[in-house]
């Protein structure tokens, strides 16, 4: 794609999510969609991280752990230390990234199902730690977390206090989709940079990449740290929306879902996890009317999808350039 085309596509996307969607919601009165779309945006941020680990050839079923760590980091800073939420958001991401470097250095040597399983266990470790550590308030979780406060710069209110807003859902929605747009723009940039190409070489053959002088250990850890950063951001935002966090707020199920989002959208496409999250989440939501048959129909459709599009939804795109 040419730079102008890219710019136009980005502008069109931002216009649709920031203007068209709120307008459509106002017109139809479907206010519940704000939260649903916010969820999709945040989950797709965390899924983007998982996608990046897929990109270096690792199956990551541990993103729930970082979402939980991020959520707790933000909640603890806000509640126990009175830090502004907006400051805790990047801190949560960075804390997760730092933790992931420590964890990643040994475990990134693992491959295939071994890495997948270790990360799966990591999710459970995070939950058990949240239950056992005093700083997380243990089993009783953290409730009544205050809503994000105002951001003022030189006396000008840049972001209003969410607690005073008429419709905080809309505010959360806007913050989340902006974060999502930033996240995917960054990911797109990364994949098309020199580093992205090196990552791709890891996915195909680590030994070969190493033999031609790629520092594979460094590359793996950086990719994993970025991935975990995104997980932490997603988790911190969720804690702010729910105004509560529990050890069970992000579990193995979430970790598995993040991974499924990537599969469904297509592992070869940067925007795969976004589409995958959207379809999986809305698919489930849409089947709400079917009551007790919800899971049955949902899983049948998933199987049908796999049979027809085993390489993900985006493989439908005609004449798609691979790894777009």
């Amino acid at each position, binding site marked *: 794609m040419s730079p102008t085309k890219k710019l136009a596509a980005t502008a069109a996307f931002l216009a649709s999510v920031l203007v068209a969607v709120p307008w459509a919601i106002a017109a139809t009165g479907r206010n*519940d969609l704000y939260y649903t779309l916010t969820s999709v945006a945040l989950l797709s941020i965390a899924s983007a991280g998982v996608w990046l680990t897929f990109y270096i050839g690792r199956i990551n079923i541990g993103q729930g752990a970082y979402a939980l760590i991020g959520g707790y980091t933000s909640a603890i800073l806000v509640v126990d230390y009175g830090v502004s939420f907006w400051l805790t958001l990047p801190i949560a991401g960075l804390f997760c990234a730092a933790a992931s470097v420590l964890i990643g250095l040994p475990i990134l040597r693992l491959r295939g199902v071994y890495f997948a399983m270790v990360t799966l266990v990591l999710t459970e470790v995070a939950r058990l730690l949240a239950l056992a550590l005093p700083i997380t308030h243990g089993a009783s979780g953290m409730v009544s977390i205050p809503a994000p406060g105002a951001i003022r710069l030189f006396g000008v209110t840049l972001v209003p206090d969410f607690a005073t807003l008429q419709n905080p859902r809309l505010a959360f929605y806007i913050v989340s989709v902006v974060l999502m747009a930033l996240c995917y723009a960054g990911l797109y940039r990364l994949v098309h940079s020199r580093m992205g190409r090196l990552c791709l070489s890891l996915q195909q053959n680590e030994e070969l990449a190493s033999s031609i002088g790629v520092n594979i250990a460094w590359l793996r850890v950086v990719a994993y740290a970025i991935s975990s950063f995104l997980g932490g951001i997603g988790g911190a935002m969720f804690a702010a929306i729910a*105004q*509560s966090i529990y050890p*069970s707020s992000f579990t193995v199920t979430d970790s598995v879902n993040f991974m499924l989002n990537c599969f469904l959208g297509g592992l070869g496409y940067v925007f795969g996890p976004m589409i995958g999250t959207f379809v999986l989440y809305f698919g489930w939501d849409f089947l709400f009317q079917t009551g007790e048959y919800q899971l049955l129909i949902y899983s049948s459709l998933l199987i049908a999808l796999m049979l027809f599009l085993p390489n993900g939804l985006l493989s439908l795109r005609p004449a798609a350039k691979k790894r777009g």
Partner: protein
Amino acid sequence: MINRRSAVTFMALGTASVLSIMAGAFSANAANKELKIGFVGVTSGPAAAWGTSNVRSMQTRAEWINEMGGVKIGGETYDINIITFDDQKDPKRAIAGMEKMAQEGIHYVVGPNVDDGAAAVRPVAEAKGIIYFPYAFPKPLYVAPASNAILGMIANYQSGPAIYKFLKEKKGVKTIAFVAANESDPLSQREGGVAAAKALGLQVVAEKDTYQNDTRDFTPVLTPVVKLKPDLLVLSGVAPGNAPLLIRAARELGYKGLISTETAHDAKVLQEGAGELADGFISVGGASTPEIASDMMKEFVRRYTKKFGEYNDESNTKVYALDYILETLKANPAAINNVEEFKRTVDTFSAPNPYVKGEGKLKYVGTASFGQKRQIAVPMVVNTYKDGKFETLFVGEVD
């Protein structure tokens, strides 16, 4: 081989079944207005039993009411329509469920079933004017400034002390041991239980033993606890599915003392899972023991059994929430779409309890625990299991 055509047929069938189910939802009594009551809770996965007994109680009761011509509130007759949402025990989904309820114009929701979900939906419920009835015990949900949650059952910190006191005085219990699943709800309940036991002067011999909730074989968990030979073994917040397994493991290891819990259980599950080993197991229930249950309760059990093939004793407690909602609305029709009216009515509301024999009252309680009336009064029937049935041990009350 699956080819494209057979899969298309499959998808078409899927779509057709979706449509037919949706069509089925609209076949209510056309003459009456519709009153939607929501449910947000878990009806799939390992904890499915909790929410399922909720949903089924509500559906049974609603069908029954509609069959009788609906419910009369302020001169208008309504058919009850239960809207359910499976949150899969995920607090993030629970929020979506509550948003959905708000979108459907629902002001009264039963659920969620667990602590994290109940805490997560609070911002939505308060913003959108929804009163919800969680089956979760954390006090911050019910203590001011929280105002929209009403506890749907008896909390363990209310029933626990009563049970321990009874057992201390009547059965000579001196030492007590706690075992809980390593999850928020059971751990919090264990904490409450330990505090209550200590306050009564009981000697707590084990208060740290936990198990993973997905444990299938509890012998390793219970081996060290049984060795301590406590007089009473408390299974804090035990899931209905795990209770018989724990009981069986403890008894087979030679444990001779009493076993109790503060949650509701199902006699059939205990019978199948532990048989006679479960005899003497003490739990808390609603009103199904023959000494207490009224004819209406028996009729409810009959209808439930007819509709779903098998009754679940947990529903003895869970049948109440819907009746509380409807009776309160009858008492103050303005509350039907204004929860502030509902909250005003809560303080004075009182109606006869149809499910128990005698003079039982439906009223809101909780002042002692929460400082405001944010709990429904369910008779605290402490019962003991014997030969596939529950027998009443004693009946208590919460204020």
